[in-house]
């Protein structure tokens, strides 16, 4: 699907709760080809990244701060968080805005996919053999037909200080 055809504007436009009879709804996204998902209710907004102001001396994972309709939001580069090489310059990326502890954060990912409803039967725990960084942020895995979807635990994703004492 095209990135401009945004699947989610904000959670308010989704009258149904994130969970329904057939399973949980996730906003999906890709990083380095891997499919990830964040529960729909945790996602505030999906947008193309605005101008990001770098924050000197911040942890590596912090891409900077941006202005989201008058709110200052910290942008987290999920690639760096996962220990992946930095995105090449001028490659398009997307921003998924999530809320945690009353603060908004923008998660910078490669690409955003559609909203999927996933059945509980397809859910598995995070494989124990995964890389530490990946295992830390993963809340479990869904077995899709063609690929695997890693559920992102937003709270743990935002726990940076343990990794990088600034």
């Amino acid at each position: 699907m095209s990135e401009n055809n945004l699947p989610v504007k904000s959670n308010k436009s989704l009258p149904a709760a994130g969970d329904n009879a057939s399973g949980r709804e996730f906003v999906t996204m890709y990083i380095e080809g891997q499919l990830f998902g964040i529960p729909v209710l945790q996602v505030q907004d999906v947008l193309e990244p605005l101008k990001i102001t770098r924050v000197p001396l911040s942890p590596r994972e912090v891409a900077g701060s941006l202005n989201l309709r008058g709110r200052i939001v910290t942008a987290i580069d999920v690639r760096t968080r996962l220990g992946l090489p930095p995105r090449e310059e001028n490659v398009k990326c997307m921003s998924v805005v999530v809320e945690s502890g009353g603060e908004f954060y923008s998660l910078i990912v490669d690409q955003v996919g559609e909203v999927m409803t996933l059945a509980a039967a397809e859910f598995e725990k995070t494989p124990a053999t995964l890389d530490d960084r990946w295992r830390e942020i993963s809340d479990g895995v869904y077995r899709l037909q063609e690929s695997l979807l890693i559920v992102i635990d937003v709270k743990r994703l935002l726990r940076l200080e343990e990794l990088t004492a600034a």
Partner: protein
Amino acid sequence: MDDLLREFLTETHESIAQLDVELVRLEQNPNDPALIGSIFRLVHTVKGTCGFLGLPRLEKVAHAGENILGKFCDGQLKVTPQAVTLILRSIDAIKYLLSVLEETEAEASGDDQELINDLDAMAEGRDVGGAESVETVDSPVMAEASAPVQEHVAPVGEADAFGFVPVRAEDTGLNVKEAKMPEQPPQSVSVPAPVEAKKEAEPASGEGGIKESSVSSQTIRVSVDQLENLMVIASELVLTRNQLNQISRTQKDNPFATSLQRLSHVTSELQEGVMKTRMQPIGNAWSKLPRIIRDLSLELGKKIDLQMLGAETELDRQVLELIKDPLTHMVRNSADHGIENPSDRLMAGKPETGVVLLNAFHEGGHIIIEISDDGRGLSMNRIKSKIIQNGLASESDVATMGDQQIMQYIFKPGFSTAAQITAVSGRGVGMDVVKTNIEKIGGTVDLQSTEGKGSRFLIKIPLTLAIVSALIVECAGERFAIPQISVVELVHASAHSEYRVERINDTPVLRLRNRLLPLVSLRRALKLNEGKKDEDMSFIVVVQVGSSSFGIIVDRVFDTEEIVVKPVSPILRNITMFSGNTILGDGSVVMILDPNGVAAHAGEIHTTADSTLRHHSSSAHGRVSAKQSLLLFHAGGDAPKAVSLSLVARLEEIDLASVEYSDNKPVVQYRGKLMPLVPLDESFQLGKEGTQPILVFSDHERSMGLIVDEIIDIIEDQVEVNVAAHHPGCLGSAIIAGKATDIIDTGHYLAQAYQDWFGAQQDSSFGSEQLHRVLLVDDSPFFRNLLTPLLMVAGYTVTTAENPAQALKLREEGEEFDVIVSDIEMPGMNGFDFAAAVRKDGGKWGELPFIALSSHATPRDIEQGRRAGFTDYVAKFNREALLSTLQQTLSTVRVNS
């Protein structure tokens, strides 16, 4: 009018208005327990507050009314129209008393025995028929026939058996007055019903019984949260306006220009208006000073006249809170150090009475507070010798310093020139804290002093913390904001101009007016593009932090802009270089540089050895509440020790020759009394000669000196004890200033001193290292406001919650307390359920002592309370009992644990 009283009136008027409505509803649904509960609570609160404020007459009436309501609650008494009428009568009596109170600020004379008798009779279930006045309203049908009292009720009473009598509460109010107040002149009684219609137009009529309260109609209460929210929105509007202005400026012949200008005006007015709602007169922060000065002059035998000008000057309540303590401290200092004894003054040719002047006024977006005295001024020589003595600077350095520079040393930690240390000041832990606190809110302190003539402190603080003016600069392609208040000047440096950046061992410096100004490369400080060197052509922003100034090298300087300071995200909060971030007119986010943080960084570069002062500035921001000031010292062993500064009364050096021994324990004569000296390490032996630093802990009459080897520093830090105590006298270890530090348990040493000299320690107001944390749960804001300062003065840290739900939320958030003090009567979850909830879920709060506040304490309630898990029960309006119960409860817990 007394603030407390005004607040009481406002709150009670609100409650009463609500009561009228609820009682009518009650009559219609006599069996609605929620309604009864709510009415009961309201009356109960009124009664409790009366008790607190010492309004016995009001309290009695409320109490009698509450009794009946209590019986309604228990189902012992049925809700009948008669009973409701009686309660309404008591409400009217309360209204009348309130109106008198409002007019005269004193309770009306006389009593309401008759009414109370009726109420009591009803409460006891006796037939109230005996009492005349009750009979008259006994049955609405009889109203018409009933006695003269009922005159103007009559036509109403006819109308309906239920709905009407209560609605005509005002009339009933008159009746009560008529019946109970024979001493009142007749004309005040015979207010005819028509007055009702014009009561608003005639506020001065003085007919209290039916007059709308003027206090309650002039103000409405709005929660601070709401105001804050409004402030944020207004600030956003200002920003948007700024953006529009910026766009508009770039375009010629803009058709929007006129409208934009209007919008701009309106926005400014709105912003000002919103800011005003948060403003409070500075006099609120001064109210305690006259008393302090009075006590001081008695204690010190001085004659001091405290003059306060500009008390009505308003400033943001947030700022007000933060400057309260520094101001008090400085006024104390002036009175104690500044003003001389009457005899000295006469000798110096001054009037016997010294003057301490406090003056506040507005000046260009700032508030200036001036604290001056006509006392002896600062003694340059004494400061100089103290500087040298404390090793803060060498003798030759001091010789080259200007007076202004020397004076700045009084703001250094641990610096006091008071020759004699008194109870009041001279503890050397003051001015530095004052300065830090003021700088924390973006203010500055300036000092002028003439020896023999007096000294003058000028505090300059921003009107509000929300919007500041900032200089926008660029470095390595990134823009930053520097708060204008710290910027002294801008210098353009280039290789060919008068100003040129020079380097000493790669550290940049600048010759500025025959002085060498240290420079900080922002590029390097922020680790931006470090490979690239600062260009020769650059701008230097000269900033002043405390007494030192330095230059920040930036690439470009833009305009100044009004910015709204927003806190940085928690992830970034540990970067001390920034005090916040903001959105500029063009919509981009910039970080706000904290000159304190930059200075701290610079301090690390330039004066690595000078670590003692560093922590001070580097901890100048972040969450103030979570940090505490600690005094670091050495005493036996290698590890530094720390104690909370709030517990230390003074730092002293005692002459060892003056140490005497009593019962083989060292004591020293101190302020006319013997003060025990306790070594930190029991095996420690005092020397015979020289001096020994001690920390003095004082509690009321008693003092104790803790012998230490050396006082290191005062720092402000978040303290987390990571290693539990391994020996008595130590609370545990924590990392402070990068070193493992033992936090000492003052209580242990106090006990040592007190057991030997004073017997068992009764007063535990500082029995332990940390202040006891009290969680106060009460739905009445009045009570919360009343009890919080009371408890704080008694040495507790107080957190308040409006209701149990809020309190339980605190628990979820992991807050910890030492004791819970809770009201019982609250809407939603009451105190019993709250206690049960706290006990049931166990967890952190499961074992906490739980003190219930209530004025409705029957043995049955107490029994119910104990079952629900209350530790103790205290009458709500008894301050003494509350304090002593808290103390007992906490000391029991302490012993048990």
